[in-house]
């Protein structure tokens, strides 16, 4: 399990895009990630099927991979990856590039589909009615998000391996932290302190106050 996890430690990203998309924030954000967000906006605005197909080529195999890591059989993982992409098509108008990248948005879609379809539970969701938006809509939001994403990916690469591993296991193992601790042969407190240290590092890389 360990070798398996470490072998996928933040490898380089190689998008397969059929068409170049307009790039506005190229100075702060890797062009491929921007291109994905732009494709998603095209799906929302013009129901562009070529843009959808490019997003599918990039994300569906990764969603399948994500679900298989969490224990789904290949056929079910593939069905759910297709469902996730259909959901992207249907909900594209809700995508807000100032709040999340296409990858983050798809991650939440795939995560929720899995809870629903595999675990057969509901996911209690936040509702913006419960709180004032943290900051009003701001023309700079998209730029802030873009530079945040760059800093986040750098900070993730720079995490000490023991911290990176418990973060990865948290997303891909579908096990409580107590079990992750048992399997690593370390106390639960050590897993928790690695998580805490990792989050402190990532927050400070993004300039968030701890």
């Amino acid at each position: 399990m360990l070798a398996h996890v470490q072998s996928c430690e933040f490898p380089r990203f190689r998008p397969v895009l059929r068409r170049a998309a307009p790039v506005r924030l190229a100075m702060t954000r890797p062009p491929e990630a921007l291109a994905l967000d732009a494709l998603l906006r095209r799906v929302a605005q013009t129901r562009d099927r070529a843009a959808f197909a490019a997003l599918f080529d990039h994300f569906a195999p990764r969603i399948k991979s994500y679900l298989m890591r969490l224990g789904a059989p290949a056929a079910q993982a593939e069905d759910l990856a297709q469902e996730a992409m259909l959901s992207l098509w249907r909900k594209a108008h809700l995508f807000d590039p100032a709040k999340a990248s296409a990858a983050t948005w798809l991650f939440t879609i795939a995560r929720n589909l899995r809870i629903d379809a595999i675990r057969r539970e509901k996911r209690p969701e936040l509702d913006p009615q419960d709180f004032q938006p943290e900051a009003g809509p701001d023309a700079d939001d998209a730029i802030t998000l873009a530079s945040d994403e760059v800093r986040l990916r750098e900070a993730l690469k720079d995490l000490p391996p023991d911290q990176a591993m418990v973060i990865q296991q948290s997303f891909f193992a579908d096990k409580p932290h107590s079990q992750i601790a048992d399997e690593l042969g370390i106390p639960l407190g050590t897993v928790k302190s690695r998580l805490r240290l990792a989050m402190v590092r990532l927050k400070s890389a993004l300039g968030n106050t701890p």
Partner: protein
Amino acid sequence: MSIRHHPDESLLLAYASGTADEATGLIIATHMAFCPQCRQTVTLMEKIGGRLLETLPAAPLSRQALDATLARLDEPVAVAVPPRAPSKDGTPQPLRAYLGGDLSGVRWRRMGPSLAYKPLFRRGGISAKLLRGAPGTEVGAHTHRGMEYTLVLAGGFCDVTGRYGPGDLQVADSHVRHSPIADPGEDCINLAVTTAPLKFENLIQKIAGPLFGF
């Protein structure tokens, strides 16, 4: 209102990554309705999830997968769920979804003169319920077989581990022995999640506990 007791990174990450069970998810989401700090942390954790998704090696799909999906793009879609009605008394929305309305409309079941409860759901050994104690109510000393999560929704309580007010989350594991006392003033209303029945020390509660699902 300032929150002093937050879920730790481990709990927030379980919610953000989707590994938390539903009852734990409910208590975390309800805490987040009170807590901008934890909302911000979970948003960051979801970005980490997005980044990890992007960096996963692709698992190839069968050749017809794209065409099969393209063929379904024009399927009629089930009518979207209407947004939830706004709360009249500030009950957090994640909780309203389970109550079917506001806290002020809950039909409480009494147990004794000063304590009432409302079961929400139970799945496996994990149960979620609301507890309501009159000011000054003492819940008998108990320890736990599993975990006990208590989120204050209104009023407050005190025990050996500290003071808890609205939005505060108490996490007690099998090592904690406590006998919470509701603050004076107003009723204390808590959302409680237990992963195994509590162990009461008082004989009456020992007998009554299982009856009430504790």
